[in-house]
């Protein structure tokens, strides 16, 4: 398959090469078909597109800025670093792009309730926000571990009127929140839409979420052309499920000279086994309705993942990334917790921008890519979210709490 064909993926059955597809209970198949049709009809409808674009512009704050990070770039081999500022969107991350699309679709399908899984809470907050805006009932499933490390976002969701249900089984993180959301959906599908937050799950989710996030790369491509008169040398993003990354990459896939880099959560290091670097350290299997790379043992049991970042702490990855990995179009590497936190601090101190810890993985990757490509390179970094939610983790990591020594 050629890279040109990437624009036409997935195929009609939701496959990106051998990845993706639909491994779902029969009870959901009718709803997945209904959603596919509703989505295709909606995006072909000028009125739907106009309403979505209006919300993106007047509510989410698009287009997001492209900010040059000169002092940070000096630390990245002198490369020209351009930050795609998804952190400036309403609710503080790229997640709102997808959620507004799916929330409008929910209303269009005549459904009155929306459910979501969330890791860091960014997708949950975005969903709760859109639900409040459109008058939908909202339930968010969140691993109990994550409700503790992202307590601020739990409070935000509740303020917005959503019910947050802590998930207490399995590893009590994102994957278990997904399981619980699927269990809810099987029983409630008649009146409920499951607003999946990343480019994952059974078809049509990986395609639909990608399409709603595509705007990141479309804007960035125009902005960088306007600013520099040429395409960038590289586009860099963090990858958990992979929605900000596919959003940033997609418009650049046909530009074969633009290198695409995804940075996964390396936790304590891939060799330690304590990580969430699916594409670097995983193998192909089936999880949450899709065929993709995942972290599993010899019996196909999902392995526990580890990351300082709740949003990247997931054992699978969107199927389109698996396809980009195998075709070699994109390169995926792991960034450890410490590298990510160092980059987190560096951006704060050089640019006055506090990134999400998820996005800090992309920043750490940009430091690496900058060293590799040198001072003539232009690198677009998707700054997928802001770090307010991470202050608790950062305060502990760096010892910012009164009476304790600072690590900075």
């Amino acid at each position, binding site marked *: 398959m050629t890279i040109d064909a990437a624009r036409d993926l997935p195929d009609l*059955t939701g496959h990106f090469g051998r990845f993706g597809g639909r491994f779902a209970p029969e009870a959901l198949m009718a709803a997945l078909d209904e959603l596919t049709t509703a989505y295709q009809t909606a995006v072909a409808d000028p009125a739907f597109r106009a309403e979505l674009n209006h919300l993106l512009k007047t509510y989410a704050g698009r287009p997001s800025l492209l900010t040059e990070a000169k002092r940070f770039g000096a630390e990245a081999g002198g490369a020209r670093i351009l930050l795609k500022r998804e952190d400036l969107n309403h609710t503080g991350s790229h997640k709102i792009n997808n959620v507004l699309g799916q929330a409008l679709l929910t209303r269009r399908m005549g459904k009155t309730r929306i459910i979501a899984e969330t890791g860091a809470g960014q997708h949950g907050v975005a969903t709760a926000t859109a639900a409040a805006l459109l008058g939908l009932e909202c339930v968010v499933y969140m691993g109990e571990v994550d409700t503790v490390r992202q307590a601020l976002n739990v409070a935000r969701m509740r303020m917005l009127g959503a019910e947050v249900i802590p998930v207490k089984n399995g590893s009590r993180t994102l994957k278990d929140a997904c*399981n619980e959301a699927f269990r809810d959906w099987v029983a409630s599908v008649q009146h409920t839409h499951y607003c999946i937050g990343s480019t994952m799950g059974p078809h049509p989710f990986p395609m639909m979420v990608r399409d709603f996030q595509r705007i990141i790369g479309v804007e960035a491509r125009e902005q960088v052309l306007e600013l520099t008169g040429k395409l960038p040398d590289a586009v860099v993003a963090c990858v958990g499920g992979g929605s900000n990354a596919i959003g940033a990459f997609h418009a650049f896939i046909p530009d074969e000279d633009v290198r695409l880099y995804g940075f996964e959560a390396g936790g304590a290091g891939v060799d330690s086994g304590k990580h969430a670097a699916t594409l670097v350290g995983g193998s192909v299997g089936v999880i949450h309705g899709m065929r993709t790379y995942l972290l599993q043992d010899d019996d*196909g049991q999902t392995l526990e993942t580890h990351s300082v970042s709740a949003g990247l702490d997931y054992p699978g990855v969107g199927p389109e990334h698996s396809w980009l990995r195998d075709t070699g179009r994109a390169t995926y590497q792991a960034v450890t917790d410490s590298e990510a936190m160092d980059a987190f601090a560096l951006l704060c101190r050089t640019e006055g921008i506090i990134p999400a810890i998820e996005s800090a993985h992309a920043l750490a990757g940009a430091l690496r890519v900058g060293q590799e490509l040198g001072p003539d390179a232009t690198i677009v970094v998707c700054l997928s979210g802001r770090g307010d939610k991470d202050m608790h983790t950062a305060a502990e990591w760096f010892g910012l709490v009164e009476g304790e020594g600072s690590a900075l």
Partner: protein
Amino acid sequence: MERTEGAPAPTVATAFEKARAEGRAALVGYLPAGFPSYEGAVAAATAMVEAGCDVIEIGLPYSDPLMDGPTIQDAVHQALTGGIRITDVFRTVEAVAATGARTLVMTYWNPVDRYGVDAFARDLSSAGGCGLITPDLTPEEAEPWLAASDAYDLDRVFLVALSSTDERLAEITGVSRGFVYAASLMGVTGARSAVDTGAAHLVERTRKAMAGRSPLPVGLGLGVSTGEQAAEVAGFADGVIVGSAFIRRLLDAPSLEAGIDAVRRLTAELADGVRR
């Protein structure tokens, strides 16, 4: 239990035929391998056969059972924590099949995919298993399994749901073998106080989808936990499938022995139900 060359492959269809000849529905019982322990599961399944189950489904414990409610989640978690492996699942199948009961494996797809679909079919067949029930595999993605189940003469039990369209019922029943698993409600596994009113209609629609072909038996599962419900379901389906209620007995019992006694009593109650 090695199958001798030339002997017909065991199929659950014969268990349904036997029940039909006796003018009743078949009783199908589910239990995950390794729960409450390897030996405990074999002993409990054996008790279920002795007390009247016609078919046993051995669950393959999986880390992410997204179609299962809290009861099966607890049991599966216990089995995995106890260190159960796929090879132990095959040993369980072998021990249960040796009782003479038709034995299937119910599994999420990833463990089979990881093991290798053909290798899994081969090892299931040599353990004396009849086939697989696949709750998250639909015909769209089943090509490798259709080939492997043909190669090893295994039953392939797909699910139909209240939300399945007539076209899908035709497609699913068209590739099924052994029996068709009708999910009685929209939701996860677990005991319910009443059988969904749509269940009988689903069984009827499933049968209609097989009109003009040699029809497969239709078993109804999800939510059935009492003799009374079994009798009700037996009034319109060819088989009654019970899972969580057996697990609940084992979870609540003070000892394995007491649990197995309770499982035996429940089986007898259900076996009486399907004969009413």
